[in-house]
């Protein structure tokens, strides 16, 4: 049951790789595998399993085998706590989750409490996509490591990009009325005021999440405001319907988004026709090299797109940390992970020790018809092409985290 | 002069444009038994609905023991001591006979909306319900759900609920409808028994019942009170004969 070694091989000090080889690190994946967000969860589970399989054994410095098992948290914070309990009962010491900050914060908090109340049985929480800045700021936790870039970092990158776009003069912000949407609006206003104070905020709209069936009135308002650019944190239906409504009204202005690449959204976007949509993310659809090969193989195997590149970084980091710690024991691995730097698909990435936020390269990509040789996202004939690459420092944001580290050893 | 138990003063009711009750005035002394008769659609049930608060009158007054009750809600009127039964059986189908009756007595014994006392400990309410059950001769059906009773038993229960609250003025709308001769006879006796000392108004079409039960008869025709008098006088009244009686059916019933 236990992931960690049952029979400690006679230790060959200084050569951890040999000692660890053959051990299995089991990671519990908890995200929605049924219900309305199942498509995303299923894809990401496969991505994790795929990355784990590919990078097991000799492919990682520790030589360990990774195994990812899916738990269905149905997107619910409370259910996540149940799946967490189930995972703990089954001896998992590593947990990963990403879909939704609600569940993420619940897991972060529960892992923290569990580790405090059960010394020696610590868990590590690898957060691959929950982007609420709070998780690495006021609510930061020693056992939590974030592989994605949080909302504020993405906005930092985005505003850095917009800064150099002279034709952007007036921006309309539209978002879902909940923490993410509110944060996007807040960080945008902050960032742009710093970098391009001349840009006008033509308007700001927050609408209830998932309740809008018809975005035409919003589009009318945007047009009325005279904005030349839209910034939105919307995702899922709220994004595709907005794009469709813009198309329908013939309002062709650029739109900067966070989540146009999520499973299902490209298909819906493509069905809506050409539109000028940009995405800020830590990756894009047309990577070459190892990641490109992985994408192709993933597509062949699952007939689906590989886009959660955090899985790649996650497994690499974990492998490196285990090798560095010389153990798969989470308390040691966590320590090793702090400040760890590994080579990723786009330069080096660093797990910042102060808040456990991965510092990585960011991209602005554009949604357009795929040319020959470009990756056709979701078989739509469209793709996300990178138009700007930004080094990690660009999107790095300060943290208010006051990390409490375990005192002993 | 004593105040009438129930008094109507120029009561009117319209539904939309049609005026159904066109100025009824009536005074009933305490302890009297009145039968209300009249052709179909004359407005007898409507009259009862106005008195008991199911509808609010368009104009006019209803006085119960001298107090105005028109426009009040049914439950307020009930609390003032007026209770009614329905032409179409109207009981609590999924409660047992005993529970049906107990529901009828609770308010009058002052239990109101309490949820701090157990029903089982309300000795007075239980005793009264048992007693009522005995009066309407349903003791043996105590724990049967009302929906499973026969039609006649349901009618009896209907009367039981009506008198349960101890109201002094009772309105019964066609209490014997749908019963056979023999049952009707039994039933009249029952009604007589349970309403001793109370003021009673009954709507009936069966002249046998009317003449068997009533001290006085009120004849409603087209929303007006055509006559209000002793049974014999009403029977002899020429206009009543024309409008309502005047047939061998009525004679046959009355003479039965």
């Amino acid at each position, binding site marked *: 049951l236990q992931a960690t070694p049952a029979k400690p091989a006679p230790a060959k000090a200084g050569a951890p790789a040999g000692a660890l080889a053959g051990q299995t690190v089991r990671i519990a994946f908890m995200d929605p595998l049924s219900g309305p967000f199942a498509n995303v969860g299923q894809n990401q589970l496969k991505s994790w399993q795929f990355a784990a399989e590919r990078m097991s054994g000799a492919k990682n410095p520790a030589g360990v085998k990774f195994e990812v098992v899916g738990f269905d948290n149905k997107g619910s914070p409370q259910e996540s706590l*149940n799946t967490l309990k*189930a995972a703990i009962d089954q001896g998992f010491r590593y947990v990963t989750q990403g879909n939704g900050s609600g569940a993420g914060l619940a897991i972060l908090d529960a892992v923290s409490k569990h580790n405090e109340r059960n010394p020696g049985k610590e868990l590590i929480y690898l957060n691959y996509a929950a982007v609420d800045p709070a998780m690495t700021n006021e609510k930061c936790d020693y056992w939590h490591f974030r592989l994605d870039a949080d909302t504020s970092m993405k906005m930092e990158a985005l505003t850095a990009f917009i800064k150099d776009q002279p034709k952007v003069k007036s921006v309309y912000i539209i978002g879902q009325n909940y923490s993410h949407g509110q944060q996007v609006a807040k960080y945008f206003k902050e960032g742009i005021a710093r970098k391009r104070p001349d840009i006008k905020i033509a308007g700001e709209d927050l609408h209830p999440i998932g309740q809008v069936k018809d975005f035409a009135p919003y589009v009318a308002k945007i047009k009325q405001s005279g904005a030349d650019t839209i910034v939105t944190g919307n995702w899922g239906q709220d994004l595709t319907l907005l794009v469709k409504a813009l198309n329908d009204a013939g309002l062709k202005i650029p739109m900067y988004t966070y989540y146009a690449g999520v499973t299902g959204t490209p298909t819906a976007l493509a069905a809506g026709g050409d539109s000028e949509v940009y995405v800020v993310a830590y990756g894009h659809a047309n990577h070459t090299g190892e990641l490109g090969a992985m994408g192709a193989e993933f597509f062949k195997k699952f007939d689906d797109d590989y886009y959660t590149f955090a899985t790649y970084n996650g497994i690499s980091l974990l492998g490196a940390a285990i090798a560095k710690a010389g153990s798969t024991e989470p308390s040691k691995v966590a320590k090793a992970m702090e400040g760890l730097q590994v080579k990723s698909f786009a330069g080096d990435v660093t797990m910042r020790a102060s808040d456990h936020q991965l510092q990585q390269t960011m991209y602005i990509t554009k949604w357009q018809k795929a040319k020959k040789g470009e990756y056709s996202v979701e078989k739509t004939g469209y793709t996300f092409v990178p138009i700007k690459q930004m080094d990690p420092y660009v999107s790095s944001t300060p943290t208010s985290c006051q990390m409490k580290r375990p005192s002993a050893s | 002069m004593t105040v009438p138990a129930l008094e109507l003063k120029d009561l009117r009711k319209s539904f939309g444009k049609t005026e159904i009750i066109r100025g009824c005035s009536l005074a009933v002394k305490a302890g009297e038994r009145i039968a209300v008769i009249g052709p179909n659609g004359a407005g007898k049930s409507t009259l009862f609905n106005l008195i008991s608060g199911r509808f609010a009158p368009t104009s006019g007054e209803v006085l119960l023991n001298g107090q105005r009750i028109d426009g009040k809600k049914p439950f307020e009127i009930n609390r003032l001591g007026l209770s*009614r039964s329905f032409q179409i059986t109207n009981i609590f189908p999924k409660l047992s006979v005993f*529970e049906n009756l107990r529901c009828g007595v609770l*308010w009058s014994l002052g239990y109101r*909306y309490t949820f701090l006392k157990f029903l089982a400990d309300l000795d007075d309410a239980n005793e009264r319900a048992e007693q009522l059950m005995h009066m309407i001769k349903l003791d043996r059906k105590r724990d049967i759900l009302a929906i499973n009773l026969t039609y006649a038993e349901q009618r009896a229960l209907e009367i039981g609920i009506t008198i349960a*609250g101890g109201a002094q003025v009772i309105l019964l709308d066609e209490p014997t409808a749908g019963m056979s001769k023999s049952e009707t006879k039994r039933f009249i006796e029952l009604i007589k028994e349970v309403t001793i000392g109370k003021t009673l108004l009954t709507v009936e079409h069966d002249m046998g019942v009317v003449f068997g039960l009533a001290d006085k008869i009120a004849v409603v025709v087209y929303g007006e009170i055509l006559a209000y008098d002793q049974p014999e006088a009403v029977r002899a009244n020429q206009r009543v004969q024309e409008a309502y009686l005047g047939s061998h059916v009525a004679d046959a019933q009355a003479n039965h």
Partner: protein
Amino acid sequence: MSAAYYEFKPHNIGRWILWSLFALVLLVAPLVFTSSLSQTLLSQMGIAIIVCLSYNMLLGQGGMLSFGHAVYSGLGAFLAMHTLNLVSKNGFPLPVSLVPIAGGVASMLFAVVFGWVTTKKAATPFAMITLGIGELVWASSLMFPEFFGGEGGINGNRVAGPARFGITFGPQIQLYYLIAVYTFACTALMFAFTRTPLGRMLNAVRDNPERVEFVGYDTQKVRYIAFIIAAFFAGISGGLAALNFEIVTSEVVGGQRSGAYLLFTFLGGATFFFGPIIGGILMVLAFVLLSEFTKAWLLYLGLVFLFMVMYAPGGIASLIMMNLRVAAFGRLKELWVSYLALAFTAFIALLGAASMIEMVYHLKLNAALGPQLHFLGMTLDAKGVNSWFGCVFVMLTGIGLFEVTRRHFLHQWGEIQEYIELEMKRRQNL
């Protein structure tokens, strides 16, 4: 049915035994199921029992179909959590064990406000108003991070304030016993409620509101008070959930939650007091365990509802009561062979059907992992003709045998029911 019959017996031994048994089960359950998952499951069952019972105050006892009961359990949870944080951060002198009551009181206050508009109406308008209010509260729960804590909700630490008798409520088992005490007390109180004048008038309002007005009661007020009381218990369950999870997020006021209360209360059986207890237990099992067991859990859930509503509209409780009635007339023992046969044949049919469902899901979701899948200890080849053929064969055999036994059983059952009817008539006429 029979409950009312025994009401006046001074020493009701049967009832004493039942309640003691209930207490005993609550007491020993965590000693039998000891893993940390099962302990949190047991805790959640206690919470679900309370909320389903409170929901049934509306549905089963008052005939009020609510689509928004989660509003009350959820708001109770939020306020309980705020209270807990007051205790842990500001040293507010309230023992943690009483925090759920704070949740209950808070929900009650909300019900005083919302209920006033809701209970003005009955039947479909009532249901629709609850739907509307539910949607409104749900939408606001995301819009006001100041109170609801945004996406992450608000969290707290139940180890707060001075420990009394060494109880900190840190370990799950301690919390479980707190929940067990609440579950027992709330169940008892809600049962007591059904025996009070208001409880009875609530039944009357359900059956025939018009007549209630003519025996002196204001139906609106009866519904209103009952609604507030139900909200109080819902709030307590919310408060317990807050302690159990130590986090409250907006999902707790969501429409899905309300829908689940409705479905499972009904499945347990709304017409009997104890039905929702079964419903609550099933709710936790379905959501937590069934989904771990199979990817097709929503399909199974849908099918179970479809068949239950069609063949046992009184829920599981009514099935139990029907058999108890048979037992009371001493004829249950004739049936057990049939039951066994039914269960066995149904199992075979289900096995075949479920294997096929699992294979389809496997093909759809995990085809890349190869055609093999393991199901109940069997290895099936989702792409193999043999597996499919085998499953179809098993299922058809099962269905065939089931139909034969079912016919036999129905005949037997009808005969026993007839006997009981006759017997009852006979006893009545004694």
